[in-house]
């Protein structure tokens, strides 16, 4: 028996298909203009912030949002140096007494006056162990906070500690916030939070009472879009009009072709490097490390895999950063010299260009697809000088845990958000091996130890820079890490958006200077 013998039923199947088609076409009927309202800037971040509180937030997305909503005593200038923000001036009365004078007439978003007691409250809250702030250890050198006047704050340190000032960029919150329960506090930054959709978006309104003048934008919507393809499609459609460092290098030519979009680039500040385990018998020989560095054709990797959107690095500090040492000797790409160095170090290639290798090394990396491709390129380049590279990729937590435990030979990482040259104490001082610090490579050099200690105590900027210049020269010779490249900051924006200056450290508070033109000349929109 076949029910479909009845001719009436033969129409059923096409009918079902037609129904579906009709349903999808019905959407076309309610076609509507999706692009943004006038004066509204829609920014896409690659992830959602974990907390909107400058006292507890640590992730990059939170920091970027907080740059828009919260103001600190100081802020960073384009060279990574510090300049007054809420403070009108600051002065080190003695190396252990730093006095900040606040600007008069400062206000929080709700109109409350911002005074010295709010500043003291913010930092005392962070220092209180009961509040479990992740930033607490940065205030270890602090003895006390005093408020001699309503607009004067005095920080008394236990001993001279130059990196302390970088903590003064942290956003100030009103005194008494979150005495009961917990809610993200307001701030005194250029934008104020109007609405929060957890995991989806944050809507910001301009703060008319901002001390630097009210922002020109009438609204900023910050969307959290984790998928890079979708970020690009949103830009293309006009429903997002500002993405800083969120578009894959491969998609940039396509973005540049779009008449509504503009691609801008500027030097960045996050250096990627190759890390060596110095307690490994092979890698403890500086000649082997130099040979590996010389065997790597960084220029080709940057040109092909990063599509040219990175600059070769000679230090883990970016050239624009104030403490970067000029005139460092770059490591050339020279496979022949690399082979000679390896021979000299006693690692002869058993069969010249044949398949046998001098030695094999394991290279660990995360599961990021681009990082894996870079690792494969390095594998091929090292094979040519007779070194076998075994590339292994791990889930981030496992990978990073292994690096901390010293369970690696080679790895590659990027220093993100580097703010002070005290990084040399954290990552290269022999007393700072994990878990006491980030000297993951197990580097030991008495002179570097001495200089990194001195750099903490020296509060005079020029003398301090001279100390870090010397450290950078020693590291360029010893190569406990090989600085690879610094990714450029790439902004893809709507053509109507203007006024944003890309800083090396991706400062989103620059949005206070941005405006958006109403109509696009010569376009239907």
């Amino acid at each position: 028996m076949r029910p479909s013998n009845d001719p009436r039923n033969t129409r059923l199947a096409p009918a079902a298909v037609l129904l579906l088609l009709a349903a999808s076409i019905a959407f076309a009927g309610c076609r509507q203009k999706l692009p943004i309202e006038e004066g509204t800037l829609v920014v896409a971040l690659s992830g959602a912030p974990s907390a909107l509180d400058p006292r507890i937030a640590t992730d990059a997305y939170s920091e970027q949002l907080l740059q828009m909503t919260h103001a600190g005593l100081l802020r960073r200038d384009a060279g990574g140096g510090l300049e007054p923000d809420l403070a009108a001036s600051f002065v080190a009365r003695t190396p252990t007494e730093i006095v900040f004078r606040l600007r008069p007439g400062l206000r929080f978003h709700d109109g409350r006056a911002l005074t010295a007691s709010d500043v003291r409250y913010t930092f005392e809250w962070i220092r209180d162990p009961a509040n479990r702030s992740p930033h607490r250890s940065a205030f270890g050198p602090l003895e006390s906070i005093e408020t001699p006047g309503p607009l004067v704050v005095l920080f008394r340190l236990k001993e001279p500690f130059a990196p302390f000032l970088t903590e003064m960029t942290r956003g100030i919150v009103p005194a008494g916030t979150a005495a009961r329960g917990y809610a993200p506090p307001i701030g005194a930054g250029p934008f104020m939070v109007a609405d929060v959709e957890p995991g989806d978006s944050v809507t910001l309104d301009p703060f008319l009472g901002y001390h630097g003048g009210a922002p020109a934008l009438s609204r900023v919507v910050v969307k959290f879009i984790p998928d890079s393809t979708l970020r690009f499609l949103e830009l293309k459609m006009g429903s997002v009009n500002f993405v800083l460092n969120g578009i894959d290098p491969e998609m940039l030519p396509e973005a540049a072709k779009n008449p509504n979009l503009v691609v801008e680039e500027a030097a960045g500040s996050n250096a990627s490097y190759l890390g060596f385990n110095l307690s490994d018998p092979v890698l403890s020989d500086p000649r082997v490390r130099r040979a590996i560095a010389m065997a790597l054709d960084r220029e080709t990797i940057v040109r092909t895999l990063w599509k040219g959107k990175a600059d070769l690095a000679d230090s883990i500090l970016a050239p624009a950063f104030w403490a970067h040492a000029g005139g460092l000797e770059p490591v050339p790409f020279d496979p022949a010299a690399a082979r000679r160095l390896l021979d000299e170090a006693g690692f002869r290639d058993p069969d010249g260009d044949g398949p046998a290798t001098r030695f094999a090394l394991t290279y660990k990396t995360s599961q990021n697809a681009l990082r894996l491709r870079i690792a494969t390129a390095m594998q091929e380049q090292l094979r040519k000088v007779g070194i076998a590279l075994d590339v292994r990729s791990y889930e981030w937590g496992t990978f990073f845990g292994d690096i901390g435990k010293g369970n690696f030979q080679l790895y590659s990482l990027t220093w993100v958000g580097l703010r002070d040259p005290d990084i040399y104490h954290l990552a290269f001082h022999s007393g700072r091996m994990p878990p006491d610090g980030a000297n993951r490579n197990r580097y030991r050099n008495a002179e570097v130890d001495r200089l990194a200690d001195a750099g903490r105590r020296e509060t005079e900027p020029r003398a301090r820079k001279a100390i870090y210049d010397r450290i950078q020269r020693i590291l360029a010779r010893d190569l406990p890490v090989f600085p690879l490249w610094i990714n450029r900051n790439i902004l893809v924006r709507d053509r109507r958006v203007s006024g944003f200056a890309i800083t090396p450290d991706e400062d989103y508070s620059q949005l206070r200077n941005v405006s958006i033109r109403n109509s696009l000349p010569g376009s239907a929109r």
Partner: protein
Amino acid sequence: VKRLLLDRLIHALFVSLGVATLVFLLIHLIPGDPVDVMLGESAVPADKAELRHALKLDRPLAAQYGDFLLGLSRGDLGTSFRSREPVAREILSRFPATLLLACASLAVALLIAVPLGIAAAMRPRSWIDFLCGTAAMLGLSTPNFVIGPMLVLLFSIQLGVLPVSGHGGWRHLVLPALTLGSGMSAILMRMLRSSLLEEIGQDYVRTALAKGTPPLRAVVRHALPNASIPVVTVLGLQFGALLAGSVITETLFSWPGVGRLTVQAIEARDYPLVQGCVLFIALLTVAVNLAADLAYARLDPRIRHE
């Protein structure tokens, strides 16, 4: 039915306890330390120890497990390490988005699967059956991270009728629901076709046809209810999975649901949040399966008497 409910409730209790224990052990045993994630590398050991103490992570695992169960018995899932919000509030703030997407996807899947499944079963080995079979094969074998961007390209970029991603009105719902629903409909459609074919061959359908019942009516009224039991089983399992939040689709469309929350919690090693999310998902799955069991009883009276 009361017996069934009681049985299932006891069952659910054990399943949840088992899942809670398993998750607790797994999240504590995998490498990665929440204190390291929170404080970063620049933190000094004394601060790390202090935070570990404040979070009660320095206590023996058994004591932590005891605390966790004690909290559960009071209905307290704890506080997220990172956002400092109560875990229950975090999950409940994300659940409506996931529930909405799950229901919409299910509706899409049923809208596609039921008519096409019936059509294919009524004319086996015809062009429509072949077409449905091919479509189902494509739907099953195309991952969501491919379907999603293709739908975006078509509906948002080419036609410009729907937003690319995000959460808001019904227009934001269409593409993620289509992405999830189309894949699901493939399985349902094939399932419905094969079980309908079996029923159509039965005597009672032949009797109905012999009495002059129009074939479509005979299939929909008589064969479909009997054919739907295996379909309901699959439907229940799939809906349970949808309620757990589809990690890929939610990430793709920036849909603020439970799936994304769970992944973010795992990445941050936010133990209370991970435990809360997984427990919540487990309870939902148990509840949906219970609903499916109750639905059988309605569809097939024989099951009621067992």
